[in-house]
């Protein structure tokens, strides 16, 4: 418990510095807002100014962040951060690891594993929201999302996390370079569904990695079958409910939703 408090105060030191910067940013932004003169037909005085609440927020946040900073210094959080930095640098220089603090090492390892798992979740969300949804067929995007997260976390194997994680990073780099070089526009001009096909390949590649790990035992194989079934069925049902029952147009309806689902739906109707 005491150890947790110490860690929390260390984090407070860093957070308070970030918050102080943010509150100064808010105050600078507010100082640029009209405090006097005429804006939008309204004669400004300080108490009508749009800057009034941002200034109060900025000052309030600044005072509270300073209290947080002082508290972290008083309760040795700042000292802890400095010690950590010094220890990190000295370890890096000497290339030796102390064996006496094995408990600390195992705790650190557990923390790193947790951080890695969270990073994977954020990465898959990032791929879906920033890279896929604005450009690619919504249905295949959701299938990719579910297959990646569900597959990795439900099968829950360290080697799988490493392999699939590397693959996801590689695909992220490919997709980012396509998006930032505007290659996506050229690809769509050349062939309407080219991006949908790329994401389909990406989804299949994730499945292959999962499958390679799953064939090792029957229990994992069974789990993979469930993952595959749910990864396809859930997006199909959810998108169909939103599109046909709630009449919500999907962000992009491409090869999979427009050409397959829409065709089936309108043929049956």
């Amino acid at each position, binding site marked *: 418990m005491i150890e947790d408090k110490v860690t929390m105060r260390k984090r407070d030191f860093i957070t308070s510095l970030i918050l102080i910067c943010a509150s100064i940013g808010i105050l600078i932004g507010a100082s640029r807002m009209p405090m006097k003169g005429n804006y939008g037909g309204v004669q400004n005085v300080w108490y009508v100014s749009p800057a009034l609440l941002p200034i109060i927020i900025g000052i309030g946040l600044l005072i509270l962040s300073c209290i947080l900073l002082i508290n972290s210094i008083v309760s040795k959080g700042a000292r802890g951060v400095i010690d950590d930095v010094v220890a990190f640098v000295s370890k890096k220089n000497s290339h030796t690891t102390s064996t006496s603090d094995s408990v600390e090492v195992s705790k650190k390892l557990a923390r790193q594993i947790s951080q890695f798992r969270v990073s994977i979740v954020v990465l898959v*969300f990032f791929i879906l929201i920033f890279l896929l949804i604005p450009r690619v067929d919504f249905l295949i995007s959701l299938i990719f999302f*579910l297959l990646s997260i569900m597959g990795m976390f439900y099968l829950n194997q360290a080697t799988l996390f490493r392999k699939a994680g590397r693959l996801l990073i590689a695909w992220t780099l490919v997709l980012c370079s396509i998006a930032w070089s505007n290659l996506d526009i050229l690809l769509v001009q050349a062939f309407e569904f080219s991006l949908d096909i790329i994401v389909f390949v990406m989804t299949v590649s994730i499945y292959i990695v999962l499958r390679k790990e799953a064939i090792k035992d029957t229990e994992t194989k069974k789990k993979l079958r469930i993952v595959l079934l749910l990864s396809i069925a859930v997006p199909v049902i959810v998108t169909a409910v939103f599109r046909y029952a709630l009449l919500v147009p999907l962000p992009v309806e491409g090869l999979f939703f427009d050409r397959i689902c829409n065709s089936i739906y309108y043929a049956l109707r």
Partner: protein
Amino acid sequence: MQMLESLLSFLVHIGYLLTDPIGLLVLFGSVIMGIIFGATPGLTATLGVALLTTLTYGMNTSTAMIALMGIYVGGVYGGSYTAILVNIPGTAASAATAMDGYPLACKGFAGRALGLTTTASAIGTFIGMFFVITLSPVISELALQFTSFEFFLLALFGIIISGSLTSPDLVYKGWIAGFLGLFLSVIGRDSLQVYPRFTFGISQLDSGIEVVPVLIGAFGIPQIMSVLKDNFSVTGMKSIGKILPDFKTIFKHIPVILRSSLIGVGIGSVPGIGEDIAGWVSYGTAKRASKHPEEYGNGSVEAVICTETANNACIGGAMIPLLSLGVPGSPPAAMLLGALMLHGVNPGPMLTFENPEFIPNITAILLLASVAMWICGMLLAKQFVKVLRIPTSIFMPIIGLLCIIGSYAIGLNEFNLYLMLIVGVIAYILTEQGYPIAPLVIGVILGPMCDENLRRALMVSQGSFAPIFQRPVALILFLVIVATILSSTGMFAKVKEKFSKK
């Protein structure tokens, strides 16, 4: 006279709801969904309300309210399942229930404990509903006398008190979260002069940030991340046996039920504080007042009854400030406020004039939701337990998918998704650093009220703050805010110590 009119209108609404088969179907469906959300560790009533909000967008307001109130009531009650059967509260609201519910299950009384919590929850919701119908119109009437200063102070009070009481670490971390929420609310063109504030030239930010995607991000994304991080799954579940309402025990504990209900309603009506605090306060009070405090923690039936009554009575309590003042009483109520805004309903003192049928309608829904919850709890408990066996790594990604499509469906805007993810990641980081999320959300919701009323009040008083000290309600609110802040500092503790020594 007004109360009689409300009562009559309430009875008419009950009759109308009972004869509406679609409404009943939606009610039972949403209550079942709520119980599943509440019972599943990692999912909360707030998240359930958030996700369902997006599905109710196309419904009429009345049906949408049936669905949202149903999931809210079911969600708060559902947490008791895992609290009793596995010693892991499904929601924070039933954390106190686990203290005695699990020992009861270990003794082989899981079915009895579930029967008691189901009945106690239904009674708690019912008593909360009684206070909504009687108090909301009175408070609305009083609030009509409020000027902009009172509304500004009320919004500020909501943020400060919520920050003080929900912070798991240092008190001022709650206030920081509140200020961050306020900051999010000022983004966009201001309502008075249409001046762009902190929009950074992004046109999508001109109209301000959409509340629902922000709330989904703040409540949903951190939950998904933390559950997947630990890859938690429900194991070692106790068998239920026969579930009986055990009315005899309930009748024996009527004083406990009444006291816990009053605690629940009282705590629920304080802005931003949720059902979890109601449960704990009720538990502590019941233990102090009990003739057998030694039984608490070892499977006391009284403890299980008091916590479940209080957390469900809190729903009614949370609805009172929401409907009469436009200030949400708990995190799920904050989400409900977002949903109401989506449907063009503006809760506050004017609600009784603009939409006189709304409060009786809500209370009628609350009553039927408590009955539906009791029926579902008694008949379907064993089926709910089966759902709990689904691993979190399976349903959490599906919840993520629903968060995404829900946030998008609100405004058919991809920008909402960016907002949801960014707010979600920030909320996760804040949670990990010991900052509460409720004040942040309350800040986002009450920010516009704070901004507009402060400037309007100062405009009327020509920049003078004197009216705060001249108007009794404003002065009381001001003093309460000052007292809340001072009581959280070390200085107050020293003064208290000095006085106690004397």
